[in-house]
C-alpha cells in the first residue's frame, strides 16, 4: 500500500490567490494599509482623549482646517511659492552638480583637486550652512535659492561622478576605437551610461532640497508651506502644522514618483528585467 501523503500533491490551493486581480489589489491597496491604520489610531486617540486636543487635534479638525486653508488660498499660495523656490534652486544646483560631476568623473586631475573637498563638504548637512549663509546673503529669496541649490548640488555631483566612473570599460573602449568627439562621448556614451546612477542622485537631491526648503522657510522666511507651519505652531494651532506635514509629504511623494516615471521613460532602451 502506498502512503498517499508522500505523493506530491498539487499546490493549486496555495496558488489560487495569486490571480491578476489579487495582484492589482495588493499593488494599490497594500501601501494604503499603514496610513489607514495610523488614521484609525489617531481617531481613536482623539475620541478617547488620550492626548489633549490642543496637542493632538482630531483628523476631522485637521480636514476642516485643510479645506479652510485650501479655500482661502493659503495653501495654494504657500505651495506655489515653495514650488517656485524648489524649481529655481533645483535647476541651479542640478545643472552645477551635473557639470562638476561630469568633470569629476571624466578627469582624474579634477577628481584629485576637488573630489576630497566635495566629499568633506557633503558631510556637513545643508542646514549646517544656514547660519553662515544667512550672514552672507541675508534673509530673502537668494538665501532660499542658495540653500536649496546647495542641497541638490552635492548629491548630484557625487552620483554623476560615480555613475561615469562605473560605465563598463567595454563601452569606453568602443568610444576610443571609434575616436568619438568629446561632445558625442559625453552626450551619447557617458551621460546615458551613467543615467541610472545619476537619477538615484537626483532623487536624493530632490529629497534633500525639499527638506532644506521647508526648514529654511520655518527658520528664515515669511512665506511658503514651511512658514505656514511655523505660523501654526506660534498660534498653537497644531492642525495647521499637521496640514503642512501632510501637504509636504504628499507633494514630496508626488515629485519622487514623477522622477521615477521620467527615469523609466528615459530608460526605455532597456528591457524591464535589466
Amino acid at each position, binding site marked *: 500500500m502506498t502512503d498517499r501523503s508522500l505523493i506530491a500533491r498539487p499546490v493549486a490551493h496555495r496558488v489560487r490567490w495569486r490571480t491578476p486581480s489579487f495582484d492589482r489589489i495588493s499593488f494599490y491597496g497594500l501601501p494604503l494599509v499603514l496610513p489607514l491604520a495610523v488614521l484609525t489610531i489617531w481617531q481613536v486617540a482623539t475620541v478617547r482623549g488620550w492626548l489633549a486636543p490642543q496637542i493632538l487635534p482630531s483628523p476631522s479638525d485637521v480636514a476642516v482646517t485643510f479645506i479652510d486653508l485650501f479655500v482661502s488660498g493659503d495653501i495654494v499660495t504657500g505651495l506655489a511659492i515653495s514650488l517656485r523656490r524648489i524649481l529655481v534652486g533645483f535647476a541651479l544646483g542640478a545643472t552645477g552638480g551635473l557639470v562638476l560631476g561630469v568633470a569629476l568623473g571624466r578627469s582624474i586631475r579634477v577628481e584629485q583637486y576637488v573630489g576630497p573637498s566635495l566629499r568633506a563638504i557633503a558631510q556637513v548637512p545643508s542646514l549646517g550652512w544656514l547660519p553662515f549663509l544667512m550672514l552672507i546673503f541675508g534673509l530673502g529669496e537668494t538665501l532660499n535659492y542658495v540653500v536649496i541649490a546647495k542641497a541638490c548640488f552635492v548629491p548630484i555631483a557625487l552620483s554623476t561622478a560615480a555613475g561615469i566612473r562605473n560605465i563598463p570599460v*567595454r*563601452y569606453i*573602449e*568602443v568610444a*576610443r*576605437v*571609434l*575616436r*568619438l*568627439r568629446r561632445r*558625442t562621448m559625453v552626450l*551619447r*556614451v557617458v551621460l*546615458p*551610461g551613467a*543615467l541610472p546612477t545619476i537619477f538615484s542622485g537626483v532623487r536624493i537631491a530632490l529629497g534633500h532640497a525639499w527638506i532644506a526648503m521647508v526648514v529654511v522657510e520655518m527658520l528664515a522666511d515669511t512665506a511658503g508651506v514651511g512658514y505656514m507651519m511655523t505660523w501654526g505652531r506660534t498660534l498653537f494651532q497644531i492642525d495647521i502644522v499637521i496640514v503642512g506635514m501632510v501637504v509636504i509629504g504628499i507633494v514630496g511623494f508626488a515629485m519622487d514618483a514623477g522622477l521615477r516615471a521620467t527615469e523609466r521613460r528615459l*530608460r526605455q*532602451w*532597456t*528591457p524591464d528585467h*535589466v
Partner: protein
Amino acid sequence: MRATNLLDIRAVSKTYIVDDEPVEVLRNIHFTVAEEEFVTVIGESGCGKSTLLRLIVGLDIGYCGDILLDGTRIAAPGRDRGIVFQDHRLLPWLSVEQNVALGLDASDESPAAVKQAVAANLDLVKLADFGRAYPHQLSGGMAQRAAIARALVAKPRILLLDEPLGALDSQTRAYLQDELLRIHQRGKVTMVMVTHDIEEAVYLSDKIVVMEPRPGRVRGIVPVELPHPRNRAAADFIAVKERVLASLVNGPPLCFDAAPKSRPIVPDGRARRFG
C-alpha cells in the same frame, strides 16, 4: 600575387605588470597581412591573441617591436582600423542606426552622407529593416552583424575580428561565417580574425597564424590555398585542418611565411615538441 603587405607585425612583444610581477603575454610575434587577405590567428586561450588585436587597433600602445600599417607604426586608434569584439558592444541606449553612425562621428562627413553610409552598411549586413531597433531587440547574430556594420562604416583599411562568432550558436555561426566571406569579397576588406575554432579558421582564411600560449608566440603559419566556396567535408579541407591541429598540439613549428630569424629559447623545458 599579393605583393604589398598592408599590415606588418615585426618582433612584437608585450609584457603586463600584474601585482608588480611582469607577465609576458606576447613574445617576438612576426607575421604579415597582405591587402585584401583574410588572416586568422588561432590558439588556445591565454596565448595573447586578443592582446595582439588590441595592440593592432591601438587600444594599447605600450609594446616592443613594430606594428606597421602601410609602413606607419601604430600609436593610437585610427579610422584605418575597425574592430568587432566578441560581445557586440553596441550601446544599448542607441538605436542600431545611431550605433552604426558613431563609426563616422570622427569624420567630417555631412549628415546626409553619414545617413547614406549607415544605410549602405546596414544593407551590407542585411539589417536594412532594423535601423530603428534597439540592441536588446536583436538576436545575438543580428547584434554582431550590426557591430560589423559599425566597424565598416568608416571604410577601414583593415577589419579586426576578436572571436566575433564565439558566443553564437552553431547554426548562426555557420551562417555568419558565410556572411563574413561575402562581406570580405564584396567589400574588398582586409580582415584579421582571432578564433579558437580550427574549422572556422580553415573555412574562412587565406592564412592561419598558429599561436602557442605562455608567453604567446607564433608557432607556425599555415597558408590555406583552397578555392571558395570551401567544402568542410572535402579531403583537402580536412588535410589543412589536420595540419593546423598538428601544429597546435605538439608538432614541430611550421614556418611558411616571413619567419623570425631566431626563435627564443623556451625556458620551461617544453622543447619536447621539437623532437
